[in-house]
């Protein structure tokens, strides 16, 4: 539009296509945030090898961001069905509490079988929480925000009940690997996250599952009439979200070698929702972007790291976060864009919404 005459129509339209891609703004924010660090720490992007491990700011951003990415990926699918899951923080606490208390009861805390069993117990409990949420939402028809509020309130109580109000510390080498260990020079948690993200993307974009989830989020009743088992899809999605939260719980408790019923995963649900929103998934449901969510989670973690590196007092962290939330939400609001950027606002809103639907459409299959 106002681009100088040098630009041909071809590059303009390509530029437009780029800026209208649904990942453009999240990625732009991420890159901008990363670049902010360079004047303060010139070797910000350098990654060095020490003791056979890779160290560097980029590695640590992914390492510390892993639990958030996991929780946010699960949350994305829940939000895609038009729901929301407030209970993930409590599920993180419950999983950590169960796993650590089981391991701490063992005489040999390094025994692999015991560690696997402990993790199994923790994850099963997490999935049961998800089943309960899904049951309330899909079967009883309760608003998701309220249904999951129950476990959000009661869950921390249960976690404290399991740990008896104490912070249980453990000393288990194999368990330490998940959240604090290294494998193939990289933090092990990166592999866990990569696996979960890959499986999720494969399930939702290579099969019809993603389309079904979006369809349920678009209109649950219509989907049911078409023959999609929308209730079952919803329950599954909540169970998946809780499972992701459970894995994140393992990671957090493993990283600190302790289970804290009160503080483990505190406010992670809010960060996760934030990551999903930054990633461009609408809270109204009906479409989602796992890639966007991963980038959103990285944006949040980078923001935290940036605040540390540029020497701003860490307590202003939350204020920055609040500003980012508002800015991102305003940028995504068609009404705000219409008011600020004038008529452009209307044109911008449509391609972003049309894009995911378009790439999902060819995979449409007739379901049961």
């Amino acid at each position: 539009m106002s681009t100088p005459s040098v630009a041909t129509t071809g590059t303009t339209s390509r530029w437009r296509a780029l800026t209208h891609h649904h990942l453009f703004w999240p990625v732009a924010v991420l890159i901008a945030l990363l670049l902010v660090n360079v004047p303060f720490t010139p070797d910000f992007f350098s990654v060095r090898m020490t003791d056979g491990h890779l160290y560097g700011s980029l590695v640590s951003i992914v390492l510390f961001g892993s639990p958030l990415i996991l929780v946010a990926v699960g949350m994305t699918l829940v939000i895609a069905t038009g729901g929301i899951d407030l209970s993930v923080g409590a599920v993180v606490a419950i999983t950590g509490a169960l796993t650590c208390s089981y391991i701490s009861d063992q005489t040999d805390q390094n025994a692999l079988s015991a560690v696997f069993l402990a993790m199994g117990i923790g994850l099963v409990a997490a999935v049961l929480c998800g089943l309960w949420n899904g049951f309330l939402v899909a079967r009883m028809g309760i608003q998701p925000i309220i249904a999951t509020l129950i476990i959000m309130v009661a869950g921390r109580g249960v976690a404290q009940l399991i740990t008896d109000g104490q912070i249980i510390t453990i000393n288990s080498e194999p368990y330490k690997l998940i959240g604090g260990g290294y494998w193939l020079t990289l933090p092990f948690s990166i592999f866990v996250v990569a696996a979960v993200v890959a499986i999720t993307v494969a399930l939702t974009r290579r099969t019809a599952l993603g389309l079904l989830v979006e369809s349920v989020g678009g209109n649950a009743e219509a989907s049911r009439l078409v023959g999609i088992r929308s209730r079952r899809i919803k329950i599954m999605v909540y169970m998946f979200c809780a499972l992701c939260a459970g894995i994140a719980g393992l990671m957090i408790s493993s990283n600190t070698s302790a289970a804290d019923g009160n503080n483990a995963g505190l406010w992670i649900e809010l960060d996760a929702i934030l990551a999903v929103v930054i990633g461009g998934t609408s809270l109204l449901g009906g479409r989602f972007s796992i890639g966007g969510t991963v980038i959103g989670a990285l944006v949040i973690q980078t923001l935290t790291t940036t605040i540390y590196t540029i020497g701003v007092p860490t307590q202003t962290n939350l204020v920055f976060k609040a500003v980012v939330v508002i800015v991102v939400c305003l940028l995504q609001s068609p009404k705000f864009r219409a008011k600020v950027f004038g008529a452009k606002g209307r044109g911008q809103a449509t391609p972003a919404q049309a894009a995911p639907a378009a790439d999902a459409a060819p995979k449409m299959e007739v379901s049961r």
Partner: protein
Amino acid sequence: MSATTKTPAAPESRTTAQASTAARLLGDRRLPVLVTAALFLAMYIAGLGRYQNYGFTEPQVFLNLFIDNGYLLVAAVGATFVIMSGGIDLSVGSVIGFTTMFTAWLVERQGLPLLLVIPLALGVGAFGGFLMGYVIHNFEIQPFIVTLAGLFLFRGLCLVISKESISISDSSVSSLAQAQASLGVGFLSIGAIVAMAVLGVAFYVLHYTRFGRRVYAIGGNEQSALLMGLPMGGTKIAVYTVSGFCSALAGLLFMLYIQSGDPLHAVGMELDAIAAVVIGGTLLTGGSGYVVGTLFGVLVLGLIKSLIQFEGTLSSWWTKIATGVLLCAFILIQRAMTARKQT
């Protein structure tokens, strides 16, 4: 949902009569409030029976429910307005925390007189609510996200003021905190009296003013309210302003109650407030409920706490579990009621 087509053919007379009585009972909007009130009474009587030798029978134990939960009542009243209009406010706990910090800082560190600080704090809270309402209405962003940003913002501002807690030794604060109104059988603190006054005003506003009607109308059906020509924007923004004001007032009462400012005061209190509103029988979809129910919701939550104290052997986390269980029960009751209305 699928049951609608089957009902008419069923054998009539007694079954339908029973069904209609049940329907009328379930359809009565006052039912949830009555259930909560009954629950409160039952719990109180059970407490009387169980702990009569430990001083539970004293009237002061009952009055302490108001003294110890006055701030929560004020916050929950604000939340009632928002929920009644079909929205939600997650910033309540943070605004409370911020107010304690803000007032403690101004009174202790800056030496401002309390009389000046109180209106200032209330103004900041109300303005915060106004801003959130403005963004929610004008840019059509979901209340959940906007008030989430408010949660981060106010909690962050607490920490910007100071990382450590500020205890208040100002004489005007301590004399206000210790002021008591004697009721013959016991006494009430200033906080409890303010809370009851707020409840009274809210009751009047919601049930007897045009503004209250609008809040109900918007919560009931936004589209219809708009078509009727109700001032949607003004009402929505006002509702969040009320909530911000109530949160700040709750913060002042909390500051009086604890006599300190701490950046971690009232973390998660928005959930207590929402839980109290839900247990009090207000529909979370908006448009239906009574502010008196919120009072009973707060009293039930407070009574759980004091019963656990009297029990002695139970730990504080049972409060959370009991709150969750109650929340669940009341949500299911609400669900049963709304399901009735739809068919």
